[in-house]
């Protein structure tokens, strides 16, 4: 069991020590922490949401629609004696084996010092947004974003929703929204039909995914699914108070659709910021790992979407490998290691096919005009960034505008400017998430 020292609800800092510290409570983190703890190691699992499950298994309990084995892994984590800290967000590194985190609690952040022997980063991914005129209107949300907000209590029954973006998430969310009583008017997938048809042969190789696809199709019966279809603009009512309609394009056809909500998201980008801040090497925008999920930093492992977007099955396998490796068990059972590594290879192939299928079409890079906001935090429009070339990129943008300097710390606009202007991601400086001075100044010495 992990030791949790000086737990104090009066706002005093407290310290946590672990043999294996796991950051991120989605599929990869659940698998890593369970596997590490089952060997008797002290394992602490940290997540910034109120419950475990990450994005794909969001919610305090497993839901009927959850893919994979949400309930099974939650139970394994519980039975293995993992210490779970939810509502807790890592902000910086205090020393080689020490991280600083903030617990929100009732909204008054408390500082937490996390000490570890081995660190597993299971940071997940976030949605990629593609800007177009009107995308900042209220009720335009991410695809996973809309689902997360509905799970968090936003009413959706009888409201009309257009889902426009790319990736398997569109279908999963459409099914989930329909189950919650929403009227899903249309699903617009930007990938062309011929590419999706190629992907379907990939599905045939993986029976579990094919079964999933078939059952998903059944629950989506009656909802138009248009391929090669993407949003051109969103339009507001009441002086821009909220979304009123969306303009869609498919081939040469363009039309408007009245809707209450637009769920728009274009696949996922890996959350690599904490890994980069800790000195882990990235290659092609993902955390570089070896066969044991070890990063370039000794004592730091990484599993799941942060090592490359690949879906829940791959995340679970990478999480298991990382959990066994971090607790020194991986090589003790060579049969199990081999089985996991060959499963990982299979799912990596599937993930490559998936990512190729849902690559963004060039037209999406032309939806934003000079007046389209590309940095939401600071209201910077694309036209303000004219004349700044790829080499100058972020440095020049930050000198001339406040692009990328808002609270999201470039998480929304970074991928946007990478897509539109080829600007590479910047180096990370702590804090990796906005935090309070009180947390940064927390005193962890004994009194």
């Amino acid at each position, binding site marked *: 069991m992990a030791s949790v020292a000086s737990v104090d609800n009066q706002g005093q800092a407290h310290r946590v020590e672990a043999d294996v510290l796991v950051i991120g409570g989605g599929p990869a983190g659940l698998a890593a922490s369970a596997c590490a703890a089952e060997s008797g190691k002290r394992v602490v699992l940290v997540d*910034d*949401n*109120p419950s475990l499950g990450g*994005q794909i298994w*969001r*919610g*305090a*309990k497993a*839901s009927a629609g959850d893919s994979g084995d949400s309930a099974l892994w939650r139970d394994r984590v519980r039975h293995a004696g993992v210490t779970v800290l939810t*509502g807790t*967000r890592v902000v910086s590194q205090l020393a080689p084996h020490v991280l600083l985190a903030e617990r*929100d609690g*009732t*909204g*008054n*952040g408390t500082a937490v010092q996390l000490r570890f022997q081995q660190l597993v980063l299971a940071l997940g991914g*976030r*949605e990629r*947004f593609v800007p177009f005129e009107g995308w*900042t*209107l*209220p*009720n*335009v*949300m*991410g695809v*996973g*974003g*809309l*689902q*997360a*907000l*509905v*799970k*968090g*209590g*936003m*009413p959706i029954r009888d409201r009309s929703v257009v889902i426009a973006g790319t990736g398997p998430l569109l279908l999963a969310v459409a099914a989930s929204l329909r189950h919650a009583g929403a009227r899903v008017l249309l699903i617009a997938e930007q990938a062309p039909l011929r590419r999706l048809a190629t992907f379907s042969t990939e599905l045939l190789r993986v029976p579990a995914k094919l079964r999933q696809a078939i059952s998903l199709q059944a629950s989506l019966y009656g909802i138009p699914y248009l391929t090669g279809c993407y949003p051109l603009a969103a339009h507001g009512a009441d002086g*821009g*108070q*909220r979304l009123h309609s969306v303009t869609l394009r498919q081939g040469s056809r363009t039309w408007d659709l009245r809707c209450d909500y637009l769920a728009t998201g274009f696949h996922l980008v890996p959350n690599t910021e904490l890994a980069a801040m800790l000195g882990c090497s990235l290659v092609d925008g993902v955390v570089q790992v070896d066969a044991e999920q070890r990063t370039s930093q000794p004592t730091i492992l990484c599993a799941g979407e942060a090592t490359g977007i690949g879906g829940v099955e791959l995340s679970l396998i990478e999480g298991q490998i990382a959990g066994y490796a971090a607790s020194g068990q991986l090589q003790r059972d060579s049969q199990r290691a081999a089985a996991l590594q060959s499963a990982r290879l299979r799912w990596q192939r599937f993930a490559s096919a998936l990512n190729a299928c849902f690559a963004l079409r060039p037209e999406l890079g032309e939806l934003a005009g000079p007046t389209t906001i590309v940095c*939401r*935090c*600071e*209201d910077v429009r694309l036209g303000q960034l004219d004349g700044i070339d790829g080499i100058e990129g972020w440095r020049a943008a930050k000198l001339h505008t406040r692009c990328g300097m*808002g*609270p*999201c710390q470039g*998480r*929304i606009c970074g991928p946007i400017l990478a897509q539109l202007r080829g600007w590479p991601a910047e180096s990370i400086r702590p804090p990796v998430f*906005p935090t*309070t001075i009180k947390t940064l100044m927390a005193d962890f010495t004994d009194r």
Partner: protein
Amino acid sequence: MTEPSMTEQVTITINDQQVTVPNGCTVTGALLRQGVDWGRRSVSGDPRGPLCGMGICFECRVTVNGQTQVRGCQLLCQEGMQVRTDG
């Protein structure tokens, strides 16, 4: 919501008005359930609403129990919580 128990309710205040929501509802969920414009504006004054639902975009930020810049989408409502959107 994934597991609402309608017999379990939580009462919070939003800008000094009492609001009751199902236990398990987030602060952002509670705000959205009221169906009013809570005045979230961009730096140039445009109306905004939550986008990412996962604590990244900060469009959902509110003041909770005096603490500013709290992401409402990641915080469960607790009995007696005081939320302000006019800070």
